[in-house]
């Protein structure tokens, strides 16, 4: 089952390069359904049988490369499969007016999906490097699609940040291999020893991944890239791509280095990661509040929301098992809810921008009458992003708050509350204007597919408020080995 999740997107990438345009639409839909089916089957398998390891080519790690599917990875596989499904339907409609871009969007889309699945399943540090590069280049390619100057400029910045980040990561991996002689993550987890070499390696890996995850102050490349790309591309980038490097970071700290991460050096570094998260929340929210373009607002919101993920490290490392468990659940739930909600948000905003012809926040007046469904989708996703009940975002933040209390780190508690208020501030800025009745603009009509795919994703983000138990029990039964559970 596991290799199918790689074979399907890779095969479909080739199909999208080779097949003539008129066959593409159906082919893509078939591939999407297969993809979702494979993801759900694997999830069910892990749910019933617990974590699975798969030796590629029948060569056991560390000589060969193993794929590992545990509760965390299958949750993320399902997330990416579902988000990709709706984004793809959205894109099929959205890209109809972009003939040139369409030709190249689909191969990149499938390669992106393949690399994401590869990263969620990877059990080998160097393989993660190749996966990260594939992901990074595909994402950069998607940003460049329109070939316009601002997009190219954003793509160049993105590319250079991604390249620097993966080199830092690779340097860390090189040191780990030089010190321990293996690249398999489970094996390294057993061997790691608290010494300078290990710290340097983990430090380099972390810096590289922080750069790729766009955590403050390394976030500079994200807003132009996510805000300047085509709407379906922005949705994929914000919902999934930045999560991949965060996932690796979490795996390295809480899985691979779990034996030694309460060592004083790593413990203080974890608090440092939390401080970066705090910076991201405050700075990102403030920039989102100031943004003139609505897509930039959403992009800066991503910067801020990624900050919450960073709180996982101070809350889960060196604290009690209860606090760590809560932090872990909260962070994963936040990742899921943000994935669904942010994809929905970029898609609905993309529809609004398409309808009014450009993206100034102040020109959104009258939107509530003309494109109510997209605005409603935006609203639902905003509820989850703000963390209002009932929503996945609310449950996630609630768990994080509880974890902060359980570990008696009141400063993170305050941060979570302030962050929620700031989020509300920039989201209500959009609402206040969009509910003004008098339209200042002409509206061009948009396809209803655009509305409803965004609405579906936003609804999932809300529904997670009621069904959080499913992913959480999956995480609990078979999470990372040392994930504090």
């Amino acid at each position, binding site marked *: 089952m596991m290799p199918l999740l790689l074979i399907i997107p890779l095969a479909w990438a080739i199909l999208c390069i080779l097949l003539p345009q008129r066959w593409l639409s159906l082919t893509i839909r078939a591939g999407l359904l297969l993809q979702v089916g494979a993801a759900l089957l694997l999830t069910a398998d892990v749910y019933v049988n617990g974590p699975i390891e798969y030796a590629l080519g029948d060569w056991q790690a560390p000589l060969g490369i193993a794929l590992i599917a545990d509760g965390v990875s299958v949750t993320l596989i399902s997330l990416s499969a579902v988000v990709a499904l709706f984004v793809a339907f959205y894109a099929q409609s959205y890209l109809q007016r972009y003939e040139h871009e369409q030709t190249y969007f689909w191969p990149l889309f499938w390669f992106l999906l393949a690399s994401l699945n590869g990263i969620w399943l990877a059990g080998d540090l*160097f393989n993660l*490097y*190749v996966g990260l*590069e594939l992901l990074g*280049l595909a994402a*950069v*390619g998607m940003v*460049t699609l329109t*070939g*316009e*100057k*601002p997009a*190219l*400029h*954003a*793509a*160049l*910045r993105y*590319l*250079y*940040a991604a*390249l*620097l980040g993966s*080199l830092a990561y*690779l*340097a860390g*991996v*090189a*040191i780990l*291999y*030089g*010190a321990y*002689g293996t690249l398999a993550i489970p094996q390294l987890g057993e061997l790691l020893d608290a010494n300078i070499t290990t710290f340097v390696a983990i430090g380099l890996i972390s810096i590289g991944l922080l750069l790729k995850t766009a955590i403050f*102050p*390394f*976030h*500079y490349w994200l*807003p*132009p890239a996510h*805000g*300047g790309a085509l709407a379906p591309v922005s949705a994929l980038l914000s919902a999934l791509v930045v999560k991949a490097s965060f996932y690796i970071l979490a795996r390295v700290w809480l899985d691979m280095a779990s034996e030694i991460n309460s060592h004083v050096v790593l413990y203080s570094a974890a608090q440092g990661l939390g401080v970066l998260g705090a910076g991201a929340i405050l700075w990102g929210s403030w920039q989102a509040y100031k*943004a*003139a*373009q609505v897509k*930039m607002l959403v992009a800066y919101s991503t910067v801020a929301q990624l900050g919450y993920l960073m709180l996982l490290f101070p809350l889960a490392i060196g604290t009690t098992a209860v606090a760590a468990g809560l932090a872990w659940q909260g962070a994963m739930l936040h990742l899921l809810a943000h994935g669904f909600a942010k994809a929905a948000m970029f898609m609905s905003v993309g529809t609004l921008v398409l309808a009014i012809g450009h993206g100034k926040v102040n020109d959104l007046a009258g939107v509530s009458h003309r494109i109510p469904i997209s605005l409603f989708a935006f609203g639902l996703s905003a509820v989850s992003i703000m963390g209002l009940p009932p929503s996945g975002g609310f449950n996630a933040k609630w768990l994080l708050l509880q974890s902060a209390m359980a570990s008696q780190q009141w400063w993170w508690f305050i941060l979570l509350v302030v962050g929620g208020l700031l989020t509300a501030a920039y989201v209500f800025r959009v609402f206040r204007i969009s509910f003004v009745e008098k339209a200042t603009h002409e509206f061009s009509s948009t396809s209803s597919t655009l509305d409803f795919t965004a609405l579906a994703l936003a609804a999932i983000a809300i529904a997670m408020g009621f069904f959080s138990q499913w992913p959480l029990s999956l995480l609990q039964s078979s999470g990372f080995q040392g994930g504090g559970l």
Partner: protein
Amino acid sequence: MISFSVDFWYAGIGAALIALSLLAFLLSKRLLKKLLAFNIMGSGVFLMMVGMAQTQNDGAADAVPQALVLTGIVVAVSATALALVVIRRFALASVVAALAAENKAAENDAAENDAAEKNGAERTGSDTAVSDTTVTDTALTDPNLNKNGDPQ
């Protein structure tokens, strides 16, 4: 345990190359220069990877890191080639932007040619203020300057 060997020496050189090219990458404002720095940094990482692993193997060749580096080289070449393509297209896109601006001016003004040339002259003035032989970009690695490039 610590013994000087060929592998150890080159691993150390690799580390020095990484530090040197990091300096160049962060300080340089030119895209091509940054790309050169990226390539040399990659070479430094590769040297460390092979050198450090082979010190563990009594100086005998270790096929695994060598194979990994070969993969790394291919990835680095792809990235470099891609960056060059985007840089070139970026340079061309700048021409389009200028053309569009000039065409707009030509439309808006009745005296077409005069306006276009005037506009052209102005733009030339502002653009050549930084006379550099290639595309420059200050904001790529400097978070403080990020607002300049933001399409806000």
